[in-house]
């Protein structure tokens, strides 16, 4: 198979399938591996730090790249979530901030 095959509509489904296989292996490997080896405390701590690290490593560069309104939107969403603990409110507050600042020409 060549890149020509992937350049067509099949490409997106190949990517989705690759994601699905990768995710299934993550789901299954914890159960399978534990039957054979024990996760060390160090590995456990590393995996525990992963979710928050992914969020920060994704959000900070994307917001910085998108400019001032996006950075402000992210901070407002964070503040709203801390205040009311409700995803929908945080999402709308963040998006409203971005829309408003962009309308103002920032």
């Amino acid at each position: 198979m060549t890149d020509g095959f992937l350049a067509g509509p099949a490409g997106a489904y190949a990517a989705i399938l690759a994601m699905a296989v990768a995710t299934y292996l993550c789901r299954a490997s914890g159960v399978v591996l534990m039957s054979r080896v024990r996760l060390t405390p160090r590995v456990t701590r590393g995996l525990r730090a992963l979710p928050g690290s992914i969020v920060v490593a994704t959000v900070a560069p994307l917001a910085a790249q998108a400019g001032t309104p996006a950075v402000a939107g992210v901070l407002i969403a964070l503040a709203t979530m801390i205040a009311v603990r409700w995803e929908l409110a945080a999402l709308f507050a963040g998006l409203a901030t971005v829309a408003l600042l962009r309308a103002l020409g920032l």
Partner: protein
Amino acid sequence: MASPPLTFAAAAHGARLCLPLLPGVLVFATAFGAAAVGKGLTLAQAVVMSGLVYGGASQMVALELWRDAWSWPAVLAVATVTTIVNARMILMGAAIQPWLAPAPKARNALQVFFLTDANWLLGSRYHAEGGRDHGMLLGAGLFLWVVWTFATIPGYLAGALVTDPKRLGLDVLMPIFFAAMLVPLWKGARLARPWAIAGLAALAAQALLPGYAFIIVGAVAGMLAGALLDD
């Protein structure tokens, strides 16, 4: 060792335990659907991705890497990023392994497909309180899978109605939604130190490396920091 039970009653109980989480899942799935429109996915692709991957965070991050024309390196890159985002599932699976292990392998192979943060957390509590029926875990996972997969559709259709997504800020919906997700993950400043390192590493990688390599660099830096900081 006798195989642990898997009953319909426990599955229904598991699904009921998920009800308080329903608004959050609906918002997340809708947000994913709306974000998918902007990145050029078809409705079918968005729904198939939700159904086969069933991992919201990884799907959101993958959207940032989405493209019109694919190549093998691009497919490999999206698979790598997906693996890193979902590597936390290794820990989740390992934690419930003693509970799952006595069941037949084929049954567990199906069970783990529906393993997700919410049913894992609910299942861990259920097991700690003496529950042993695997139906609880499967029922909760299956229920959330149905909600997640089908709620992608209204999100996509709503997103498709918007003619100028940038004006509404929808192009940055993903980082905004992700930022809010950080709050429930917060367990004190000490455990958040790796996050700061992840953020700094990602910003440095963004300046130095092409594409979306910063996600991998930041995530790996945070994981290493988490592993090493408390030694």
